[in-house]
């Protein structure tokens, strides 16, 4: 089994060799390491992408807006991913962001996961009836487990989820009431002595 350290170093070097700058290559190494740690096929996808990159063109998207249309070729997941990561604090208020075509979306996913941690919000990505939840770079929930990730994702939608409870207030209240059964009703003497301090603290 390859260690994550070997994966990160080799991916970084391969990324430089394929033509990315060192700083970008460092980001790719970190991202593929993350994918492999989460159980996604990062090495397989980056390998395929770098093979394709030799004779196919991909578009670099440096400035992200709410609706991003590529000219003819799909977006490079690395330049798009790095741009997303760099700009996440200015684009998170857009809500939903659309991309018409992204190559090797799994690679882009790792940058979204890291972006989720940076901005402190969960992120959902949807494409071709597939849906993934990126949870603050702690885990990735998906309905794609054990399925091949597509080489091209069409009509991609990325949505930032505002920080809010994912349960009803009534469910919370019910649970809280139950938890109260571990509390002790205070008698007068417990009120006097249980806390250590006096009942008045005016001085």
């Amino acid at each position, binding site marked *: 089994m390859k*260690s994550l350290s070997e994966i990160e170093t080799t991916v970084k070097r391969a990324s430089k060799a394929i033509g990315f*700058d060192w*700083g*970008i290559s460092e980001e790719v190494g970190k991202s593929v390491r993350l994918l492999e740690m989460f159980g996604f096929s990062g090495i397989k996808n980056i390998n395929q992408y770098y093979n394709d990159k030799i004779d196919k063109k991909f578009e670099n998207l440096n400035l992200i807006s709410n609706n991003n249309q590529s000219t003819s070729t799909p977006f490079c997941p690395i330049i798009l991913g790095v*741009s997303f990561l760099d700009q996440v*604090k200015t684009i998170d208020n857009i809500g939903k962001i659309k991309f018409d075509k992204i190559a090797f979306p799994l690679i882009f996913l790792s940058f979204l996961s890291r972006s989720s941690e940076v901005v402190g919000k969960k992120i959902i990505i949807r494409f071709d009836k597939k849906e993934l939840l990126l949870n603050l770079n702690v885990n990735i929930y998906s309905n794609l487990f054990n399925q091949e990730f597509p080489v091209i994702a069409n009509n991609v939608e990325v949505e930032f989820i505002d920080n809010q409870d994912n349960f009803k207030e009534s469910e919370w209240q019910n649970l809280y009431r139950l938890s109260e059964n571990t509390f002790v009703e205070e008698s007068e003497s417990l009120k006097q002595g249980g806390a250590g301090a006096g009942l008045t603290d005016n001085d």
Partner: protein
Amino acid sequence: MKIELRDPNTIMKLSRLGSFHQSKLSFLRSFLNEFKDWEYKKDLFDLDENGYGEAVYSFKKKKRVYSLVCFANRINDDERSDRVIATKWDAAFTLHDGVPTKDDIARLKNEVPKQEVGRLSFKELTLSRANKSLRVFNHVVDSLSKGSQPDLDLLSKVGYLYRTTAVYGSGKFGLADRFRIKNREEINGPFRLEMMLVYLVRQFTFDQVNHVAHHKNPKKAVKLDKKICKNLGIGNSTGLGMAPFIVNHPTLLNNWILSRETALKEIREIEIVDSKDGNLFVDCVKKSLTNITSWNTDSEYQKNKIKSLLKDVEKFLNYIENQFDFNMKHPFNEIYLWLEKETCEECIEYVVSIMMEPYSHITQPLVSNMSSDEEKYFNIPTSRTVGELRNIIEDKYPNILDIDFEKKENNQNFWFISKNKEEPRLADRFDEHGSELEQPLAIARDIKKLHEKLLASQNNLTIADFLSHNSKLRHVVRRAFIVEKFPYSEIQDNTIGKSIMPIDMLRLKLSFFGALKFDPRSDKWLRICMFQGAPLPSELKNYDEQWVYKANI
């Protein structure tokens, strides 16, 4: 009195970093301190009459066991090389997490002797190999087999029976990644498992030499005297492979240096020094003279440094004995100021290390700060502005910005990875091919380029916008934001200049390991000795903390 931490622009210069010495903060000393109450055991010792075979040693506490698995092999004299291009070694080792099963040992027997081309598993933590110092090993075997102890003069010239030529950890060749074990309290300090491996290898070398001598002449052979064992360490040959590490791990480097600087600051701030503490300090300085006078090297560069060091340490002792009074307030601050004024860099750092000896209550808490969760600082804060980044660079890299990289001598060398052994190397940019594949280790040059670009950009531009047009400089943008928070994270020097001494980078790291007797073999590699004078495993439960100054050969 409040003392400021020393200025990174002085301390992080290569000549100063290359003058660092071991101290109480060094990893091999903190390893011994941590594992002193663990149960040590020799679990297996299955060598043939020539000393070839397998052995297992372990440290155990409660349910945790670390086992050193050793494989000693026959090699021809012409196959013995310290270079990383070697493919065979006298012995190969791995530190296994837990108790190895027979299947584990069979698997490891097939992989460990191959070193870089073998594959380890997440159950292995560190990997190493070592070669005999043939003249010492054979001499010791001969002497012991004849019933006598070896010639101490010869032993003192070398200082060890075996020399390791690499020690690997943290995910190399399939070894366990650091994240798998990082929450274990006993290894909450850098390189602790590497230190354990080297320490147990030292014991293996004594057991092996006794074993071979015994089989050579069972009736007459004696064992190597324990006092002699104690005064032998383990050698190490270190090349350029170590140099980029300190550039590639900026927050870790910061935490090592910051701990040392914090210790010095707190010691200088002590108003009244107990006489026993003052005496211990002076005693250590005096006893340490043996370490200087027994420091052998053929390197003229190092010989000159040792000569200056010896002269200055003697001058310092003369000052302490004839002009200094520990009853004054803040005596260690006075000593430090005197050192800065009167002695060379090597002597300043030498005495700074020894100042820590009486003060475990200062050094001990710092040891646990010497690791780093590097992932936390990887992301670039891209919502900040060009103006802020420019201010950071002007504040943190003032001397770097003065270097003229248009001059050939400031841009003479480049770092690359050798295809043969995947190891870092340094070469002349103008004489050798390959500079187009330069590694991102010319931090000073790239910081200067970044500064020039920033000067030509608008101050209110965000870093995200700046990077979208300047991705070539991304790796140094990341570093500049790290140095803002971690002042000792960056070497404040040119790592590609004509006059660079790469061994300064190696010495810095090795001093934190706890190495003694740096012996440069060129400007790019050196030999050292570790654990010389250290307690044997059987003595760990009660040992003299200042053992490092009391080696007798």
